[in-house]
């Protein structure tokens, strides 16, 4: 029986002159999405590589100078001065990139994946940010996740909206019932249409594996999880269509209801929530930048005695060295510490605001499961906000560590030798946290609810038939 249904459906698909064309169009859009995701990823990678290349050349020139530096005699050279050293030794911190960013761009085109580790400039400086086109950011990215989450359900809706209604409207239900169970017929046909609608994605899965597998940092497990999430999402649409098409609605009403579900689930709910969050956690006008500047000037213009007292509070064990140190050393070190404190207070307040928003957003994934789905994909691709915050915090900590190392050396040692240079702390980013699973729970619950509704519909129908 199943063979007959499949054959019937397959013939129907091939007889429909629009369907193969639509499939090809969707497949081409999918391929283009993959290409666009890849192009964006490569562009960002090239930008990072160019910045790192320049940084490496600067570091190399500093290293070479230290190789030939004689520190047994004389006073400190310019290079041994922490501020000058910081200006010359322009190392960069690169956020680990996941090739899954090809499939889901997420916020990687908004967040900075590359940060300067100079302590002399504030962490929120945008010197390393690439140029962005706000109109493009507003329009959004065309990548695989957009293709699967937004476009393929529409293809599926177009294929399935009149699944049972068309038979009813053309009066062939009785004929079909005589040949097979209506429920079995409906289910198999819906399944076939679901497979056809989402098949462009499964074909592109193969292409994406070929494209991603040769990228550094590629993980087969993460790749399979990514596609597993998409499969789960595709199932959600199968269940939604099952519930609606089995509800004895006319084909016109079915089309309207399915489109309304798509609009509410993917456009209205996330959009409304985003608007509310923008309002609840406003970004503000960043007056902190002006406050930071004022604090910068204030710190620089402090009396030497204040700077000395500040240092003594921080380093009571080095009282002797602090008392003996010259005014430039005291002022430079104390000023840098003041600035790090100011920067930290601003970063902490921004960080708190972002975390609060993120936690509040997590609660709303139960209302808008698609937002949770996107968060899972971002987490897998290392482009989520929590991962960005973690990265920025680690860079700040490293910058402070480097500053302290250089000034402590200036305070306690006569010269900054090659060995001291070799002992300069290096940035070691902690492995990223992936929180893909927990944000999918709302989607799983939605699927479960749809299954229950479907089951109840089936029971009711059976009762009616009885």
């Amino acid at each position, binding site marked *: 029986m199943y063979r007959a249904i499949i054959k019937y459906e397959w013939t129907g698909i091939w007889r429909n002159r629009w369907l193969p064309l639509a499939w090809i169009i969707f497949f081409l859009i999918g391929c*283009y999405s993959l290409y*666009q995701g890849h192009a964006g990823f490569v562009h960002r990678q090239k930008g990072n590589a*160019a*910045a790192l290349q*320049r940084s490496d050349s600067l570091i190399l020139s500093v290293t070479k100078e230290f190789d030939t530096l004689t520190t047994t005699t004389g006073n400190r050279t310019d290079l041994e001065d922490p501020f000058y050293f910081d200006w010359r030794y322009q190392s960069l911190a690169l956020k680990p990139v996941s090739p899954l960013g090809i499939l889901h761009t997420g*916020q990687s085109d*908004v967040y900075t994946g590359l940060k300067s580790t100079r302590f002399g400039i504030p962490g*929120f400086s*945008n*010197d390393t940010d*690439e*140029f*962005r*086109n*706000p*109109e*493009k*950011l*507003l*329009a*959004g*990215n*065309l990548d695989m996740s957009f293709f699967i989450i937004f*476009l393929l359900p*529409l293809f599926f809706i177009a294929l399935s*909206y009149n699944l049972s209604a068309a038979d009813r409207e053309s009066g062939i239900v009785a004929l079909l019932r005589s040949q097979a169970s209506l429920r079995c017929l409906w289910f198999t046909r819906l399944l076939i249409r679901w497979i056809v609608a989402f098949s462009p994605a499964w074909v592109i899965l193969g292409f994406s594996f070929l494209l991603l597998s040769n990228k550094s940092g590629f993980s087969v497990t993460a790749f399979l999880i990514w596609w597993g999430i998409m499969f789960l999402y595709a199932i959600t649409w199968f269940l939604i269509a099952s519930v609606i098409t089995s509800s004895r609605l006319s084909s*016109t*009403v079915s*089309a309207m209801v399915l*489109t309304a579900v798509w*609009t509410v689930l993917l*456009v*209205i709910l*996330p*959009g*409304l*929530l*985003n*608007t509310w*969050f*923008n*309002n609840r*956690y*406003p*970004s503000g*006008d*960043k*007056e902190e*930048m*002006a406050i930071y*500047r*004022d604090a910068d*000037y204030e710190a620089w213009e402090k009396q030497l005695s204040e700077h000395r007292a500040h240092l003594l509070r921080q380093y009571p064990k080095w009282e002797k060295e602090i008392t003996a140190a010259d005014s430039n050393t005291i002022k430079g070190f104390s000023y840098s510490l003041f600035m790090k404190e100011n920067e930290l207070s601003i970063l902490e307040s921004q960080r708190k605001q*972002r975390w609060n*928003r993120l936690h509040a957003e997590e609660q709303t994934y139960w209302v808008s499961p*698609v*937002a949770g789905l*996107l968060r899972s994909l*971002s987490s897998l691709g290392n482009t989520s*906000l929590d991962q960005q915050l973690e990265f920025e915090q680690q860079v700040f900590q490293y910058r402070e560590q480097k500053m302290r190392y250089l000034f402590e050396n200036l305070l306690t040692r006569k010269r900054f030798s090659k060995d001291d240079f070799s002992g300069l702390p290096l940035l070691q980013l902690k492995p990223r946290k992936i929180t893909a699973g927990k944000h999918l729970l709302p989607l799983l619950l939605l699927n479960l609810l749809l299954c229950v509704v479907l089951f109840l519909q089936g029971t009711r129908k059976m009762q009616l038939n009885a």
Partner: protein
Amino acid sequence: MKTVFFQTIQLSMRIRHLQFMAGLFLVLNILVALNTSIAYRTREESFDRARHQVRSAWLNQGERNPHSSAHYGHYIFQPVDAMQFLDNGIRQFSGSVLRLEAHAQHEAGFAPAEDTSEMSRMGELNFAWLLQVLTPLFIILLCFNAVSQDRESQNLKMMAIQGISMQQYLWGRITANYSISLLLVISGLLIQGIAFALFTGNFGNLLTGQLLFWFVLYAVYIFIITTASVLISSQVKYSRSSLVLQLALWVLLVVIVPRITANAGEAIYPQEHKTEFNRLLREDREKGIDGHNPRDERSRNFMDSLKKHYKVDSVKHLPVNADGLRMQADEDYANMVYDKHFSRIRRRIQQQNSISSTVSLFNPYLAIRNLSMTVSQSDYHSQLDLFAAAEQYRRYLIRELNHKMAYGGSKTGDWDWTTNQEFWKTIRDFDYPQTSLGKRLYRYRPELISLLFWLLCSLIAVKRASTKITVL
């Protein structure tokens, strides 16, 4: 036509899914109005506070060397316009703070989207969004069976027998459905206006000629969509097919095409990397005078020319502070370098956006989106106007400070010389630019042409369709 008009309105009022959609539209309007008015008030307050704080800090910086003050600089914040209450445009993705200081032309930073998660990419609901995206969907549900249903129920045949001309019939349907849609839009606008007045207490700011023009643009857009929807319904045999076709068109024009054009723009005109930009900038800047390095060869030549001009043999005998003049010479050169390089970057972004602008000739959604943003001053060009004005102000500010250093009474090499507090008042505050509507619209000629073209096409199409309509 009058009969068809009233009959259409009566019938539409009775359709339950339309009542539901209209209700949903109004509820969304209320939610959006509440959200955006509170957000607008917060933004406005924050902007005013930040602006006054920065000016006050400038005026009260105490006695300071003018060059130190040039590094202290100024901050420019993204301004808030009443029309942005209706269309927030690219604000979420454009920098909100711009630092102005000596020697460097910075880029605006801290785009609000940087503080948000991937949810911010799902769009921000505002009234413009409701009109651009959701209203066409409502119109489709209103009009998809405007003619096809009459054909299916044989009413069309009846009307033909009664002698109603097809053109009159079509116009009746179009005007009736357009009136319903427009009524909904006007209700929405009223809701927005009331919320704006309640939360900001400044309704007068919104009631300008710009709002009227903005409304006219949307009225044209809605007319185009209504006419298209009724015409498709008249040409397609079944209501079901008409609905599916119109929904597919909506998805294509509103969801797919804007993304494809934006991404294609970036692919066709790839942007230069920051490292490359910095390298080119550095190379060009190194060819000029280094304002902070008197040992630099060009600096020495400049000093020699000064000595020659003032007919003295040593910089010590110059009647002016040569450091101030040297730094201004550095600025003058650097300004040319910055103009050259930043204009290249901005031109590239405009080239990227030009794809969407050109495609708007075929897609009224893109046309209205861009026009709406420019009327609301929330488009990329308005941002560029702000940057240009900010850069002019930076040049004025630094020039004044360098001239104060040069001619204010200090001597060359005297970096500890300070100017008194009163001097800061002589520096005018930054005036946020207001570009005329005409100039703004001129930049969006393809979009304006597109709307007019589609309007004309709609009028012609009704005439042509009325002759081809099949009653069976």
